[in-house]
Each structure stands twice: as C-alpha cells, then as structure tokens.
C-alpha cells in the first residue's frame, strides 16, 4: 500500500492505482471524457488522450492526466485548482471547436458526455474558431456513423478490438484528420462489423448511434389496412424502467404491455413465447446430436452452439467459416416469432401476410439487421418488419405523453404471449443454456427435475463451464459472453483442447441485459448486474418455469407444427449460415 494526499485527504491505495481511481475511492470526482471502465468485464479505456481529467501534482511541472498516472508514495495531488479548471475548460473548448453544434437534433442529446462536460464547466461560448472535420456519413441496418462528432476517445475501437475482437474499427489517419473508421473508410456493412452495437453503447457522443425506426412503426400503426403486432424481448422488461427514472433492475413487464397497447399495437405478444419455442427446437436438436454421438456416430458435430444472438451469428460467419455446421440451425426467438406470427397466427386470424406488420422491441441493435436478412422473408415480405430498441420504445412512450410509472400492469395477448420462466432468462448470460438444460434433462431422462435452478450456469465470468449430470450421463456445458471470450472458447474447441456438448454464446457483455439497444449504462456495470438479478426474479415468479410445459407451445405443435425438428418446424423455424470471411483468389 502507498500513501497519497488528494485534495488534503490522506488515502492509502495499492501500488499501481491511478490517481483517478484513488480519487474515486475517496469520493472525489474528477471529470473524464475518453476514460471508460466497465468494472468486472475487463474493459478499461484510458488512452490519456482527451486531457479532461488533468490534475496538479506537487513537484511536477505539467498537469498530469489522472486516468493514466499512477499514484506514488507521498504524492500530493490537487484536483480542482484554478489552473486545473482553466486547463479543463480550454481542453473542452478546443474539442467543441471541432464539434458540430447540433445538440438540438443529435441522437445522443441528453445522454452525451461532452454536452454534460460543457455544462459542468459552464462553457457559454466557444472562443476558438477553426477548421472543422468532415467525413462521409455511413449507415448500416443497425448503426449510424456520424464521425464529424468523433472526439477520438477510442472507446469504440477498444471495445470492437479487445472486448469483441471484431476488428471492424481502427483509428486511421493522423493529426487533425485522425478518426475512427473501418479499413479504407469503407461502409460498416462491407467491414467485418457484426452489428453488436457495443460501440454505440460506449460512444460518449453522437458519433455512433442506432438507426431510428420509430417513425416507420408509427406509420404502420396509423395505416388502417395493417394489423400491427408487437413482441417484447426478455431483457427489455428489466431495463425500460430506467428511462423513466426507476432504479436499475425494476421489472416493468405489465406496464410495458399496457404502454404498447396505448401506442396502438393491435396485439401485444411476447418474444418469450418464441424463446420457449426455441428451446423445444434447439433442445431437441441438442438431444438428437448427443444421442447419435453416444450411439457411435462420429459425423455428429458437437458441441452444439446456440444461435439466438445475431451478433454472434455474424461473428462466426465472419470468423469461423469452417465451423458453419456446428451451431444450432434453430432461428433466434425473434425470427421464430415472426415466422409463426405470419403463418400459424395469421392463418388462424384470417389475416394476409402482406397486411400483417410484426414489430419487435429488442435490447439489441443486431436484431435490426437480423430481420433484414433475406432468408427471413417470404416473397420479399419479411417475417419481422421493424425492430425498435428499448431506448426507441422509451422515446415513443414519452412522445405519447405516457409515463410508464402510471401504467397499470396488463397481460400479454394470447396465444403468442404465454411464456415460462425458462424463456425470460434468455436475457442474461447463461440463461439460454439453463433453459435448454431444464427441458433437455426432463426429455432425456424422463424424470421430473426436483430443482429447476442451475445456478452453476449463472454468473458474470466471461467464460464459464459446468458439468450437469443427466441421470448418470455427464453433460459438459460452456458459456461465453463478449465476443473475445467466445473466440477464445471456440478456438479451444477447434483445436480439440476442450470438449463440450453445448456452448451458449452472447455477443454483448452480460448477455442481452447489456445489449446495445438498452438504456445507456455509461460504464456502470452495477446496472447490468441489477438487470440480471431482475431477470432471475422474474423467472422465479413464473408459475411455469420449463419451456416444454408452456401450454400454448404444446398446442402449437399439436395444431400446426407436428413435432420439434419435424418437417414443418424445419421449414419455419430453422435456418442456415453463410461464409462471410474474405478469401484470396488468384487472378490472371
């Protein structure tokens, strides 16, 4: 331990602690811009580039960046002297001098960390007039890049390369023209971007934001020819409340359903229904592969990999083209919902596919891309028409002068609204595989589970594994969240270093609760933990907690699908994957 004095407070910290962390420990606020930490998720961005966190260190001639300067024995630090505050102000004024002043229409307005800083420092004019950077705007189905607003904090680059190992973004050029962009400044869609959107989640300004589909959705609702139905993903119900001032981890399932009805959706359904359906299909596929494997069939590909997460699907299509036959062929819950809504339900209701609009509320930005994949449409009509993020839904609710707090708790419509506790845990890392285990165990062993909670599959460790005893048959399960962890685990499997029966992967740290479409957490990983706890609370409160016991699902199989992984299921609920990697071809 070493002793430092910060603003006349004596503090003891471990060696290697930065001034910033020591100050925070002592309750002293030092403003930051480029610095970003997601505690417990191994993500710390401290390029020391913005100089907003500068402090005075006695005996040092220059101001020191608190985020990138380690404490030393006997160090005396002043964080808020006149010199420091003036320097901070100049730094922010200089950043603002090359920043479009379009806060009024900026998608990050109100959540923008640069805007907050300018307010905090009381900046009322920008004294520096100079050149402004201009770059081409770029829009993928999920993400808008408007890098005129980039402040070169490099959080997105760090996230994209180190936490996700996607490698789509890099700092390019030098000096004034430096910016973060894909290789050759190509469009994101032409880069290895998987659209997980974590760059959007960490961007302090409006340089990276989500594609806004709210107006298209409202246009559909107001079109009298269309029947508009909505599904809500598991993780949205534990995060939407934050946008209305409720504490993180507040469950707002019923209020959300009520608000969606007030917005004008004709039927309010639940992606959880489709999550139960996913378990029926994916669980059956898993058991099928395990049974064949145990019968000595060496052609069976194990482990089975979950395929619910569209960011993850993109990732293995780009990075593991040799393993495209390993993941489950089951579509994601969102797409299963769309496929069933526009076949089974539409037929039942006598609605033409073309007159039915399916909207999803998702914690995710990759879902916006997923619904546009060609294989998820019939004659050009997509199974899911529009995807709104949790944030977009919050904006709509506010626009309609509704307050979630005042909403009554309402139920989902049936039949596509009935769900079990197994479905809601899809929203947290480890949840999909736990749900699958609950069903697979009972189907495989023919026995009832005494306890449905597999707590060994839960947690926040980036890579986890557990053995589950299927009545004498040990099943090895792996879990990864964050794509760097997924890559590490998959490489082990590819090299034959570790064997698993099943692996669950979620692209975003924490799983869908930490998704890029969720309310901004600004690096507070406690928020993600609170949402996760809420997910498991919601599961606990459900009367039925195993997917195969969902009565509406049972009815769907009896009336329409036949059996899991049967002919009709394959047609509607399964998909295939594409090689998106780059190949070198010899020309001439």
């Amino acid at each position, binding site marked *: 331990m070493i002793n430092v004095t910060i603003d006349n407070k004596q503090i003891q910290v471990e060696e290697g602690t930065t001034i910033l962390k020591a100050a925070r420990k002592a309750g002293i606020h030092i403003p930051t811009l480029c610095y970003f930490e997601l505690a417990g998720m191994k993500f710390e961005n401290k390029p020391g580039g913005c100089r907003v966190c500068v402090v005075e260190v006695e005996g040092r001639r220059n101001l020191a960046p608190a985020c990138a300067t380690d404490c030393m024995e006997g160090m005396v630090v002043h964080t808020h002297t006149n010199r420091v505050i003036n320097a901070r102000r100049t730094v922010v004024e200089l950043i603002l001098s090359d920043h479009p002043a379009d806060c009024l229409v900026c998608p990050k307005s109100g959540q923008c960390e640069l805007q907050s800083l300018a307010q905090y420092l009381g900046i009322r004019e920008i004294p520096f007039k100079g050149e402004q950077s201009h770059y081409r705007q770029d829009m993928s189905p999920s993400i808008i890049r408007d890098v005129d607003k980039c402040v070169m904090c490099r959080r997105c680059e760090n996230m994209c*390369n180190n936490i996700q190992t*996607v*490698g*789509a*973004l*890099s*700092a*390019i*050029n*030098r000096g004034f023209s430096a910016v973060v*962009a*894909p*290789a*050759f400044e190509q469009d994101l869609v032409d*880069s*290895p971007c998987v659209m997980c959107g974590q760059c959007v989640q960490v961007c302090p300004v409006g340089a990276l934001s989500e594609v806004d589909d709210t107006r298209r959705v409202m246009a559909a609702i107001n079109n009298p020819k269309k029947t508009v139905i909505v599904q809500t993903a598991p993780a949205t119900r534990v995060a939407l409340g934050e946008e209305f001032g409720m504490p993180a981890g507040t469950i707002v399932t019923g209020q959300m359903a009520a608000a969606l009805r007030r917005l004008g959706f004709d039927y309010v359904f639940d992606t959880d229904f489709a999550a139960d359906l996913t378990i029926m299909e994916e669980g059956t596929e898993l058991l099928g592969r395990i049974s064949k494997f145990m019968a000595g069939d060496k052609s069976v590909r194990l482990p089975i990999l979950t395929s619910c997460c569209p960011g993850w699907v993109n990732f293995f299509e780009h990075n593991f*083209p040799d393993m495209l036959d390993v993941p489950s062929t089951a579509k994601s819950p969102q797409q299963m919902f769309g496929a069933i809504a526009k076949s089974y339900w539409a037929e039942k209701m006598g609605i033409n596919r073309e007159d039915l609009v399916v909207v999803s509320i998702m914690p995710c930005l990759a879902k916006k891309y997923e619904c546009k994949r060609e294989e998820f449409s019939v004659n050009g009509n997509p199974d899911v028409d529009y995807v709104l993020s949790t944030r977009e839904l919050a904006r709509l609710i506010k626009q309609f002068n509704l307050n979630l707090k005042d909403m009554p708790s309402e139920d989902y419509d049936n039949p596509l609204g009935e769900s079990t506790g197994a479905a809601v845990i899809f929203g947290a890392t480890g949840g999909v595989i736990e749900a699958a285990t609950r069903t697979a165990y009972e189907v495989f062993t023919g026995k009832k589970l005494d306890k449905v909670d597999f707590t060994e599959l839960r947690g926040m460790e980036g890579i986890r594994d557990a053995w589950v005893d299927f009545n004498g048959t040990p099943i090895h399960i792996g879990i990864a969240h964050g794509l760097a962890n997924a890559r590490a685990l998959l490489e082990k499997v590819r090299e034959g270093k570790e064997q698993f029966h099943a692996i669950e992967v979620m692209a975003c740290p924490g799983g869908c609760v930490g998704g890029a479409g969720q309310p901004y957490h600004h690096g507070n990983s406690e928020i993600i933990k609170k949402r996760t706890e809420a997910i498991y609370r919601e599961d606990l409160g459900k009367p039925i907690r195993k997917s195969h016991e969902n009565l509406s699902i049972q009815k769907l199989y009896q009336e329409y699908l036949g059996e899991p992984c049967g002919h009709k299921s394959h047609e509607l609920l399964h998909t295939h994957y*594409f*090689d*998106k*990697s*780059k*190949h*070198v*071809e*010899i*020309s*001439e």
Partner: protein
Amino acid sequence: MAVIKLSESKVNFVKEVCKSFNNDGGEVINVLHKVQGEFGYLPAEIQELVAKELNIPVSRVYGIVSFYSFFTMTPKGEHPISVCLGTACYVRGAEKVLDELKRQLGINVGEVTPDGKFSLTCLRCVGACGLAPVIEVGEKVYGRVTPDHVKDIIAEYR
C-alpha cells in the same frame, strides 16, 4: 464470401515476407515496409492479404498505412519525381518549382499522371542543400532547379 483477387506472384511474395516475420502481427510495420518496397505502394487487396497472413484485422493494417506518411496507397509512376521542401530548398524557391511541375504534369502531390509515367511527391532534405532547390527523378538528382528547367527535365523522360 468476399473475394480478394491478386496475381499468384504477388500472393506468393506477400506470403513469403509474412513468413519471414513468423506471421507475427506485431511485425506488421516491417512487413508493410518490405511489401511496399517491392510493389511501390500498398493497394487495398495487398493490405487485406497482409492482415490475413498476420491474423490481424485489416482495419489495423489500414490504420497504420494511413498514419505513416511513408506508406502510400497510390501507385508510383514509372519516373517518381520528388521535390525537396526542406528549409534550404524552400527559401530558394522550391515551391515555385513544385507549382510548375504540378502545372506541366497536370497532377497534384501524391498523384500519378494518367499515362502512369510520372508521380509527384515532396520530401524534406536529401542532404544536398548546397544545390538547393533540389528535385529527384527516380535516382537522379537535379540541383539549382528553376521553374524554367522543369519542361526540359520532364522531356528527358517522355
């Protein structure tokens, strides 16, 4: 599946260079240095191949190529012309020479003439300040150049 099209000899050369650096991503600058030395520039396809061989994202390769002024994505002309803009050359009128070169060739700094004959770059000091202002065409150095000389110098290579 995206395809990078390259000739066999280029693919082999790049693969050899990468191999000589143990396909180590940390050696990317050295690899790019060698590869540019062979091809004169680093087109996108070559950067894709280097990234693939070193198992690093192509965005990082491009980040490096676009950061260092030494690296270029523009092919050099058959006769690369470099104008010294070092202090000595500059005060003795290098800029006027450069302007005349731009005018006569019809290109800007960093560009190549449509026929591929000439490319134009600037540099800082070739160590011949006594001859200022200095230009280089390929390996040949021309000293005490004035705008009037430009036409004749270009004619030597037409």
